[in-house]
């Protein structure tokens, strides 16, 4: 009982929780953004892009370099970051997408770890973390905001949550009503059959890769601002979005959104609880593990041959 009593006594008041809830919603929004980006690519190509975080981190570091070392206009630098995400992801998809098209989803996903390692290595070479120098990105929107009740909400927080909502709504509409979206849904079902229907499979895949990369770049900037501009941190923040996507069983966009928000909020809500605060980053794992245990009870056997 002792630890439980201790926990109950150390629970923060609603007053103390409020600012953390704002942070949680903002982070949840970005996790939703990343999660939806990954799911759309997965449904279209069968690739779960684990390099998502590394791509975002690389883009954010490029933006930092352009702003602080070359004196470039901020917004232009952020645009370049987002485009970098799109281009590098597209390039990977064009080279390794076809090469691995017929392989198991597990192989396709493992291959993206190759890109992750390459990006991590290059980032460590170019932006060494030696000397304790810390870098940061601060969006101009950090300085604007309003007071809600008694807590300060920055425009960045609002934007972060908004992009999460917007991507969820827009992606749902896009998949349902646009020609490209319909093609993507068809490919999620069966690539070969979709190809025989005259859908330009390669072009649809290219669109998915590029879109996923753009989203990675955007998430990279937002997370660099909200969390920290650090290659390893940003690379593995992908785990939070991954957990959201997993809870949605890699298919439902709305469940991904909800799960991402919950992960963001729970993670933040634990922060002021002293006995748990050190363990708050376990939230995505714990939630995903619990969800998978309950959701994955029924499984079907696949007659397909395992790879590896």
């Amino acid at each position, binding site marked *: 009982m002792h630890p439980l009593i201790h926990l109950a006594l150390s629970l923060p008041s609603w007053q103390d929780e409020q600012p953390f809830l704002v942070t949680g919603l903002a982070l949840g929004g970005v996790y939703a953004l990343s999660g939806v980006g990954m799911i759309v690519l997965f449904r279209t190509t069968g690739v779960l892009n684990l390099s998502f975080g590394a791509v975002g981190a690389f883009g954010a570091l490029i933006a930092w370099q352009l702003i602080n070392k070359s004196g470039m206009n901020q917004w232009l630098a952020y645009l370049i970051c987002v485009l970098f995400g799109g281009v590098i992801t597209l390039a990977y998809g064009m080279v*390794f997408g076809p090469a691995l098209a017929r392989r198991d989803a597990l192989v396709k996903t493992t291959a993206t770890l190759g890109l992750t390692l390459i990006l991590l290595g290059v980032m460590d070479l170019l932006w060494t973390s030696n000397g304790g120098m810390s870098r940061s990105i601060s969006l101009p929107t950090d300085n604007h905001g309003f007071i809600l009740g008694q807590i300060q909400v920055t425009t960045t927080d609002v934007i972060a949550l908004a992009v999460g909502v917007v991507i969820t709504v827009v992606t749902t509409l896009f998949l349902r009503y646009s020609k490209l979206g319909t093609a993507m849904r068809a490919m999620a079902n069966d690539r070969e059959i979709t190809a025989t229907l005259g859908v330009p499979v390669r072009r649809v895949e290219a669109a998915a890769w590029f879109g996923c990369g753009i989203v990675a770049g955007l998430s990279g900037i937002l997370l660099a601002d909200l969390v920290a501009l650090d290659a390893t941190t940003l690379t*593995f923040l992908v785990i939070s979005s991954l957990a959201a996507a*997993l809870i949605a069983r890699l298919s439902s966009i709305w469940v991904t959104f909800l799960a991402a928000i919950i992960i963001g909020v729970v993670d933040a809500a634990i922060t002021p609880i002293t006995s748990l605060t050190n363990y708050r980053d376990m939230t995505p794992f714990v939630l995903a593990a619990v969800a998978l245990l309950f959701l994955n009870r029924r499984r079907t056997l696949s007659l397909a041959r395992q790879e590896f």
Partner: protein
Amino acid sequence: MASTAQLTSEARPTSPPSAPPRLERGFWMRAAIIAVAVLLVIIVLPQILSLYYVDAMTQVAVYAVVALGLGVLVGRVGLISLGQAAVLAIGAWVAARLLFATSLPYEVVLLASGVITMLLGTIVGLPALRMRGLYLALITLMLAGAITVVLASLNFPNGGHGFSGYNGALLHIPPLRRPGIAQTDPAYFRYSVVVAAVMFVLVLFHVRTKPGRAWAAIRQSEPAALAAGINTTMYKLWAFALASFVTGVAGGVLAGAVRYLYSIDFQTQDSITLLAVVLMGGAYSIWGAIVAGLLLQLLPAILNDIGVSPDWLVILFGIGVLQVLTTAPTGIVDQMPKDIARLARFIGGLARRSSTAKEPAP
């Protein structure tokens, strides 16, 4: 009916077919090769290498065992774990805790850290096994992240008291003890190689006997394995347990090798790098694990020695993963002899062509 009778007479051969030996000859052959190789390594290497490289080779022994465990999962059963470095950290933590808390012989500590890590690994594996491969890979990646978090807050034991054995205020941190027979670095190197060899034989024994055959069946087709009466869940769990056990023992060896453990040295990224080198070395092959250990520990030591940033290695491993997955799924160990043979044929072909070209035309 006539055809049945004919079949019987046809089917019974006059000479009895050769009966295969119970445990393949290959097993004892390999065990013997391992023994000879181990002897050579532990006698010769400490003589010719500097202390710097002896230490690096101790790490190679540790990580070869970790790669061996991951190789069982990836190569034999077809399960991808992205959290094996975290499992190693658990083994090292348990060993360090026991080394500070008890005066048990080092071998007992190794065994205990293997068994405790095995239990933890199996508990984690249990739910994960209900999932398909991709989900398992992702959940282990998250687990690696979670263990990194716990370690960062719990810290490695440093001689303090309580469950964690960590005391942040300690001024003089005692080093972890080593076995009595292996106090010096070269001696500890020998000790590590022998422990690693025992782990190799243990895994080889599994692979060559009933569980190995069951794993081969599961890897090829789960329904067919079930139809053959194989309890697939149990055998997958067994693979998890074996991999966790050898990794836990490796963690124990690691504790005595470095003597001071810091949670900062165990990162989520390491699990990914580990998978990368296992794939590059060749997950199907027992020898691939040694290649993986060399890639992971000797190569950085060499680069460090000649003043090249180890970041280049991370890039190399990334390229290696992509190369292996797209072109050579069996890894270096399997690919090299083929490449060499191809090269030899190519050179042979060139030589023949040039010799025929030199022949004077009549």
